[in-house]
């Protein structure tokens, strides 16, 4: 079998396919379909739903609507907050057989630092000296569905640099900055994250959009605006990864409408080392695994390795 393993900072991934935060809850899948989802996760690294410092209810319903070739959502980062996450979620995450990249979202620089510090303290106790090869951190500075912080930080290069640098000072493990595409120039934000010490970039979070309720002709979503995902955004996301690859030296986690191994190859050719499955995985919770198997076949058919294909689209022929 083709070796598909990749490195993302200190993490070793068995294959390049992971999930986008907020689109896959392994423990819910295990409840619905059996423990095989936690014994043999379909992803090479697991990214749980974004953790916030305080408990949050999230946005009022309705929160989702199907669109042409995609899905718009305005979930709004509901969750129990850091304390419950550390107490109840972290122990079972540490028992998973794959690395975990914890996504955190804050409303100020201080909140991101508190989230990273709280996690680090818990990990230092749970797994002293060895956790950095098991646990990474993703800074969600790009959620379009909360009113302050988060995406407003990720839309500003100086704010991004400030948050990444402050977290870098407390967090010794893998540090990923997840970027919003809702800016004039993503490469400026990517360079700021790189300069501040990020180990990798994730691109893209959802595209801010709006849907109208056809009966009332008013905004459909409880939050008015939402984030668009799915195959509808794939060419936009490919462009983002392509331009970031030219702008920074960091590895890139590419995402946006990934549905097949061909999509994975396209993201890798644009420059993604790791590729994440998001809303396309709603149809099939094992999509990441299936795509990794198909990727192995596609690479061996072309007589290529994973490292050959990353950035292929940039090379002169």
């Amino acid at each position: 079998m083709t070796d598909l393993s990749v490195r993302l900072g200190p993490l070793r991934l068995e294959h390049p396919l992971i999930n986008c935060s907020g689109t896959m809850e392994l423990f819910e899948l295990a409840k619905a379909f059996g423990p095989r989802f936690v014994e043999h996760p379909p992803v090479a690294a697991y990214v749980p739903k974004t953790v916030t410092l305080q408990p949050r209810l999230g946005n009022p319903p309705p929160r989702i609507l199907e669109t042409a070739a995609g899905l718009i959502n305005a979930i709004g980062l509901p969750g129990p907050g850091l304390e419950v996450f550390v107490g109840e979620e972290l122990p079972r995450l540490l028992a998973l057989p794959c690395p975990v990249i914890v996504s955190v979202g804050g409303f100020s620089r201080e909140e991101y630092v508190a989230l990273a510090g709280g996690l680090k303290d818990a990990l230092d106790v749970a797994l002293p000296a060895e956790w950095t090869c098991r646990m990474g951190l993703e800074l969600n500075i790009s959620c379009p569905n909360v009113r302050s912080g988060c995406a407003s930080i990720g839309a500003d290069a100086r704010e991004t640099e400030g948050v990444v640098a402050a977290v870098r000072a407390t967090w010794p493990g893998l540090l990923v900055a997840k970027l919003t595409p809702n800016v004039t120039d993503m490469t400026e934000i990517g360079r700021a994250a790189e300069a501040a010490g990020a180990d990798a970039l994730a691109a893209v979070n959802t595209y801010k959009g709006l849907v109208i309720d056809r009966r009332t002709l008013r905004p459909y979503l409880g939050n008015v605006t939402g984030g668009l995902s799915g195959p509808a955004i794939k060419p936009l996301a490919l462009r983002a990864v392509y331009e970031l690859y030219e702008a920074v030296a960091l590895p890139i986690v590419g995402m946006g409408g990934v549905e097949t191994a061909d999509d994975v190859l396209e993201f890798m050719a644009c420059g993604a080392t790791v590729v994440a499955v998001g809303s396309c995985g709603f149809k099939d919770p094992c999509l990441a695994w299936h795509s990794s198997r198909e990727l192995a076949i596609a690479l061996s058919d072309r007589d290529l390795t994973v490292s050959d294909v990353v950035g292929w689209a940039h090379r002169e022929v």
Partner: protein
Amino acid sequence: MSKRADEGPRFLGRVVTDERLGGMVRLTVEIPGWPGSGPGQFALLQSEPSRCFLSRALSVSDERGERVVFLIAPVGDGTRELCGLQMGDPIRVLGPLGNAFDVDALVKSPGRAVIVAGGAGVAPFPLLLSRMAARYREVFPAPAGEQPGSPEAAGPEVLVLLGFRDSLQFEASAPLRQTAASMGRAGLRCRLEIAVEDGSHGPAEKVTDLLQRHLQPGDRVAVCGPSAMSTAVWRVCSAVSDVQTWFSLETNMACGVGSCHGCVIMLADGTQGRVCREGPVFRGETVFASERVLAGEEVAGD
């Protein structure tokens, strides 16, 4: 070694029969590997191939082994596509998902079991009735010498109240009416009352009018229908003492398993519940707060 996740929980089924019924379509799907469902559980269905990005959540209406029945009303792009499926067509199925009606609470309670269904909300009840009959026979076996099918052996009466907009929609209830009629043989007597709003079957009235007339203290009520009907049913039930209610609710869903938090509804205590995970069957008091009902606010999505 346990089964690996890569074998996947999503089934590839095949349509065995497609019946056009009262503007809806009743699909019987052969699903190799289907593990069996509880009454009230749902599955995410998608044509293969499909023009839609997401699957659609549909209640399991009935099942016999790997033959699973779904009753589908064409309300949007996805359900219209599913309604166009014909015998032999492939279909993707993720399920069974969500919780189920509490069969024991309906069968073992000293109170009478009442089923209230409106329109396409008849869908989950053929399966519920047959599971209630099976459970009744387990809990209360027929005394020696009595034939399970004899009138003397028949168990308690289940009141089945159905409401429809018009005579066309009424036709979609034929399978449920047949199931209800056959339950006597299985040990459960069903008393069926039907209200059709256009007056084509008796007086023009609503299912809540039937419920007003028949509801007694102590009744155990299982409900599925449009959100306005559910709210009205709750209003009737909450006015009678010691009535317990279970509502099967419907919203737009994406993942169906509790991952995405897209299908939440507001609960009576101000928190939110995922219809796919904490539901689709909710206790009435969990969903409906009295002040919200008085304000006439709809709490379930269309």
